[in-house]
C-alpha cells in the first residue's frame, strides 16, 4: 500500500513462518532461565506452544519428525496416579519440578513426596487440550479418576481450588481451627478463583463428563462475581477483569448456560466493547493495552455473538507491532516475546481476521504478508479441528458405555 509520499510502505517482514519457528524452537527448548519460575506451570507452556504449532498449520511436520509422539509421551509422564496417599488426586503435574517417575516411585513408602505429589487443575486442562490438539486417542488418560478428583477441588462457594494434597499434608492438618472449632475461613490447600472454575469446566467438556462439578454452586459463584459495571471479577466483589470475564463466560458457554445464567448480556457487551482503546484492548478501565486481551476480550465478545462490533483493523495493527523479530509476540510493543502472548495474540489475530477478511488485512500498514491461521474455538481456546476430534472421541466413548 502506498504511503502519502508515494513510496511503498514495507510490510512487516514477519509472516507465519517466523512464528512457526518460534513455537518450534521453544517447544523443543531450551528456553531462557528467566522463564524458570514458570516451572510450576510448564504444562501450560506446552499447551500454548502446541496450540501455536496447530494454528500456524505446522503440526504435521512436528509429527513427521517424531516430536509429536515425544511430546505426548512427556505429557503422559506428568499424569498423576490417584493413590490413598495423595487423596485420590488424578490429572496432571506441571513438570518434573517436584519429581516424577522413578524419583517418586523409588522413594520410601512413608516419604512425604507421596502426599505432596498432586495434580493442578489448570495443568490438567492444558495437558488434555495439548493431547487433543496432537490428535491423541486419550486411551492412556485416567478419565474417571480425573472427574472424581474434580469433586474434591470444588469449594463450598462453588469455586475451585487449584490443587489438593493427601492426608497429613492438607492445610487443615496443620492449621489450628478457629475459636468456634470450625475450620478457618478461606482455608484450603491452594488459591481459588474463576480461573480454576473455568479449568474445571474445560476438563469436564474435554472428558465429556460433568459429574465432577456441582453446576448449581458453580453458577452461583459466577453470578456472585458479576459486577455493577457488567464485567466479572475473579470472585465475588472483586474488580471486573478481562481474564476473569473470559473465564466466566467460557464456563457458562461450556455448561450450555450462557443464555439463562448471564445476568445482563447488553451490559456485559458494553463493558467488553469499551475495553478497546486507541491501540488495542486493555483488561480493566484505565489500564494499558496488552496483546493477550485480543484473545480474552475478543473471545468474550465473540461468545456473546458480537464479534463483528470491534474495530478489528486497529487490533491487528497493534498485534503486528507486538511481533518480535525472532518470531513470537510480546505483551506490548517493543517487549520480548513469550509463549503465552504469542499464542493468545495469534488467536486474537485469528478472531479479527475472520471478520475483516483477507482484503481488509492486506490494507493494514505493517500487516504480515501471508497469514493463514487455523480457526479456533472461542471457549476452549483450541483449534476447531481439535474440538471436532474430541467430539468423535466422545461419540466412541458413549458407544463403549
Amino acid at each position, binding site marked *: 500500500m502506498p504511503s502519502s509520499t508515494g513510496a511503498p510502505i514495507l510490510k512487516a517482514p514477519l509472516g507465519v513462518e517466523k512464528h512457526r519457528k518460534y513455537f518450534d524452537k521453544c*517447544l*523443543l*527448548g*531450551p*528456553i531462557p*532461565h528467566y*522463564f*524458570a*519460575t*514458570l*516451572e*510450576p506451570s510448564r504444562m501450560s*507452556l*506446552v499447551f500454548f506452544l502446541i496450540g501455536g504449532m496447530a494454528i500456524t498449520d505446522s503440526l504435521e511436520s512436528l509429527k513427521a519428525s517424531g516430536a509429536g509422539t*515425544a*511430546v505426548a509421551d*512427556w*505429557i503422559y509422564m506428568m499424569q498423576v496416579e490417584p493413590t490413598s496417599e495423595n487423596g485420590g488426586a488424578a490429572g496432571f503435574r506441571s513438570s518434573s*519440578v*517436584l*519429581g*516424577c*517417575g522413578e*524419583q517418586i516411585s523409588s522413594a520410601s513408602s512413608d*516419604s*512425604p*513426596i507421596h502426599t*505432596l505429589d498432586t495434580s493442578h487443575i489448570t495443568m490438567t486442562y492444558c495437558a488434555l487440550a495439548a493431547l487433543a490438539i496432537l490428535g491423541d486417542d486419550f486411551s492412556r488418560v485416567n478419565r474417571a479418576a480425573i472427574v472424581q478428583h474434580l469433586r474434591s477441588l470444588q469449594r463450598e462457594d462453588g469455586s475451585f481450588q487449584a490443587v489438593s494434597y493427601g492426608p497429613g*499434608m492438607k*492445610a487443615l492438618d*496443620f*492449621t489450628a481451627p*478457629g*475459636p468456634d472449632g470450625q475450620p*478457618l*475461613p*478461606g*482455608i484450603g*490447600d*491452594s*488459591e481459588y478463583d474463576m480461573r480454576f472454575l473455568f479449568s474445571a469446566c474445560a476438563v469436564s467438556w474435554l472428558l465429556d463428563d460433568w459429574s465432577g462439578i456441582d453446576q448449581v454452586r458453580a453458577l452461583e459463584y459466577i453470578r456472585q462475581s458479576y*459486577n*455493577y*459495571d457488567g464485567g466479572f*471479577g*475473579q470472585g465475588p*466483589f*472483586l*474488580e471486573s*477483569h478481562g481474564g476473569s470475564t473470559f473465564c466466566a463466560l467460557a464456563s457458562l458457554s461450556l455448561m450450555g448456560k450462557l443464555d439463562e445464567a448471564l445476568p445482563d448480556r447488553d451490559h456485559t*457487551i458494553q463493558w467488553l*466493547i*469499551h475495553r478497546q482503546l486507541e491501540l488495542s484492548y486493555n483488561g480493566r*478501565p*484505565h489500564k494499558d493495552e496488552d496483546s493477550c486481551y485480543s484473545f480474552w476480550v475478543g473471545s468474550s465478545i465473540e461468545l456473546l455473538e458480537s464479534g*463483528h*462490533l470491534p*474495530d478489528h483493523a*486497529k487490533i491487528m495493527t497493534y498485534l503486528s507491532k507486538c511481533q518480535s523479530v525472532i518470531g513470537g509476540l510480546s505483551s506490548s510493543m517493543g517487549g520480548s516475546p513469550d*509463549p503465552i502472548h504469542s499464542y493468545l495474540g495469534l488467536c486474537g489475530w485469528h478472531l479479527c481476521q475472520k471478520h475483516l477478511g483477507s482484503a481488509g488485512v492486506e490494507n493494514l500498514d505493517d500487516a504480515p504478508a501471508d497469514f493463514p491461521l487455523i480457526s479456533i474455538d472461542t471457549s476452549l481456546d483450541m483449534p476447531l479441528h481439535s474440538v471436532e476430534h474430541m467430539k468423535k472421541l466422545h461419540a466412541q466413548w458413549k458407544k463403549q458405555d
Partner: protein
Amino acid sequence: MRGGPVPGRAVRAPPLQRPASGLPGQLPAEIEGKLLCEIPELSDITPLPQLETETPVVKILHSDSFDDALSYFRAIVQSGEVSMRALLITSYAAIVCPSHYSVWQYRRKLLAQLKVDPHREIEFVQAILLDNWKNYQLWYHRQQLVASIGGRSDERDITDSCFEHDAKNYHAWSHRQWFLRTYPPPSWLVEERAYCDRLLSEDVRNNSAWNQRMFVLLHTPRDHPEEFGQILTAELNYTLEKLNAAPSNESGWNYLRGLYTKFPGPWDAGFFATISASCDALLLRESQSPHLNAFMFHFYRDWAARQGDVSIMAPSVTIAKLLRDEIDTIRAKYWDMMHERVVAALAAAATTA
C-alpha cells in the same frame, strides 16, 4: 506518604524493609549469597536434580541458584526431614521460585511441626513480597498465616504499602477484601470509604478504588432505608462532583450507573432529576465527551425501562448518532447497533400508542 486524614485510622503504609536475619528459615547473614551446596551443615544431604527425559519438552534453563535450591528441596521432601535446616531449604526454594505452590504447602507443614510463631513467618513473607507483589502463591500463604492467628494482623497495613507503588494491584485488593470480609475491624466501612476517597483524590481514574467503594456500599447495612438513602445520595453527589471535574472517566460513569442499577429503592426518587440536571450542565462545556455521552445514552434507556415509558429514551437517538459518526468512531458498529435498537423501540411504542 499520601496526604489527607482518614477518620479513625491512620494509613500507615509502613515503608517496608527487609527484616533483619534470624527469622524462621531465613538466611543467616553468614550464609547470604552462598549456594546450599556450599554450606557444611548440609553436606550429608544428597541433592536430587530435576529429572529430564532424553527429549524434554519446553526445557527451561535454570540458574545455579535455582537448581541448587530446588535440588535440596526435592531431597528433603524425599526424606521427610523435619528440622530447622529443612525449613531453611524451603526458604531458598521459595525465594528462587515463589510460584511453587508445593514448596509453600510443605513449608506450612514444617512451620506447624516445628511450632514456629506465625507472626515471624508473616515477616518472612513480607521480605519476599517486596520483590513479588504479583505472586498468587505468596499472597495465599499470607492469607493462611493471618487466618492461623485469627486475623490478628491488620492486613490493611501491608496492602496500603503495596498500593503506595501500585494502587491497582489485583492480588492486594483481593487480599484486602478477604481480610475485611473475614475479620472486619470496627468501623471499617467508614474508614475504607475514606481510604478510597484518598486514592481517588490521587488518581480519579483508579478503577480498583471505585470498585472498592462499591464493595463498601454493598456491605453497608440496609435495614434502615432512610439512613441508607442518605448514604446513597451522598455517594451520588460525590460521584457527580468527581465526574464534573474529570468527565473522561469510564470508571466514574460505570460507578454512577451502578449506583442506580444495583440499589433500586424508595431513596432513588430524586436521582433521575439530579443526574440529568448535572449531565445537562456538564454537556454545555463537554458536549464532545464520549464517556459522558455514552453514559447519557444508557441512562435514558435505563430510566425508560424503569418507568415503563419508552419516550424517555428519545434523546438517546441523537446521542448514539453523535457517538457513532463523530466522537467514538472506534465503536462505530456498536453505536450503530444501539442506534437501531432505540429507533426500533421508539417506533414500536409509537405504533402501539
